């Protein structure tokens, strides 16, 4: 029986759940707003816009909660790559996904209480949460209240430029979500990481979380 470690404190799990719901709802409602003729999951265009606006604001609040929590608790350290990670850790982890995983090699960087992400996770989470998410949210807020930021929006080329930035980032996040869900299946068993993000506990001998 593997020893359990408490990997995800309750606040992180609540944050992750809200974040996940927001991302999924925003991707679907955003897709309906962009392709109103093809997607009708939220009914009318107006409903999709309202849902997108409210969940967008919820995501902004959720992101700020994540940022403040991680800075205050210093758990942001989990997201910061160290010397071991760049570039060796990244290469080792990538090799594992490309080759080792098929030979059932052990995960090179299994999660621990002090370091719960592998080098690739750190890099991708840092890029997505530290860079792309703020740009995505800021572009969304500018698009939601363009009259208050009219000068800035004009200076970057108008709403069209803003919309294209928002759209491209949204697609990257959608692709990330697919990869994230898939990589979550690469734990000791397919469902391990899904259980872990609900209960908070993971087997210490286990690894990946995606």
């Amino acid at each position, binding site marked *: 029986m593997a020893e359990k470690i408490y990997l995800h404190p309750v606040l992180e799990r609540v944050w992750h759940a809200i974040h996940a719901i927001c991302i999924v709802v925003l991707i679907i409602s955003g897709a309906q*707003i962009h*392709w109103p003729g093809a997607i009708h999951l939220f009914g*009318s265009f107006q409903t999709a816009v309202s849902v997108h606006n409210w969940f967008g604001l919820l995501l902004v609040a959720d992101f700020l909660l994540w940022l403040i929590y991680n800075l205050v608790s210093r758990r942001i350290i989990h997201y910061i790559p160290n010397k071991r990670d760049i570039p060796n850790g990244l290469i080792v982890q990538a090799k594992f996904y490309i080759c080792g995983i098929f030979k059932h090699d052990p995960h090179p960087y299994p999660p621990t209480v002090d370091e719960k992400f592998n080098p690739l996770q750190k890099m991708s989470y840092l890029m997505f949460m530290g860079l792309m998410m703020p740009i995505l949210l800021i572009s969304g807020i500018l698009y939601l209240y363009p009259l208050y930021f009219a000068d800035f929006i004009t200076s970057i080329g108008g*709403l069209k430029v803003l919309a294209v930035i928002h759209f491209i980032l949204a697609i990257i996040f959608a*692709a990330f979500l697919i990869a994230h869900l898939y990589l979550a299946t690469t734990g000791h068993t397919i469902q391990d990481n899904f259980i872990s993000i609900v209960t908070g506990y993971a087997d210490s001998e286990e690894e990946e979380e995606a």
Partner: protein
Amino acid sequence: MNRTRYYLIVLSMCIVLSCSYSGLALENKCSFCHGSALEEVKQSVHGAVLGDGQRCIICHGSQYEQRHYGKHIEEIETGFEINRCFSCHGSDLYVRHGEIFPQPQLHLNSKGDTSQTSCVTCHVEEKDPHLIKPAKIYALKDCEECHSSDSILLTTPSKSSLKHQIIGTTFTNSELTERGQYVAGANRIPILDNLCVILIILTIIGVFVIHGGVRFITRKRKGE
């Protein structure tokens, strides 16, 4: 005596001239060619409110007062000036429209900035553009009329459709798009859309089908 006669002549000429250029005279002039349009306006929600002589120039700009008959229709601007709506409608514009769509400020600009949607886009019917009805009876409320790939804002103006001329010549969104305006659902960059869809499909195939497939094939079997 001669001086008095001179003043009387000048005065009467002024009266004649001012009368000939008054709204009433202008309206009569308009009705010479646009009689049916004037009749529609009289039957419209504005018909009773706008008095004689007001019915054409209240919406159409000063440029329309200039002689334009004999010109090709493409040469003639509609002359509709959106800011003329706001002289009567404007005090609770955002509140009332906020009940219909979530972001009235994005659609309407009380300063008459035509980078926003024009009133006539939603309040004018295809077949009777001058017969503006009370909003409760007719107003375009389907967002997808504008927010879709076949948006009326992107429709090429058609000679057969006066509404399309109204929208097309003065408020065409292709022109606004060039200036950076963007209508969600209508404006898009097709190649970017295609690339993004391909990225999503490749991601799904890459991880779930290819990587997942190889994992499935190389999985540990019972007894191994």
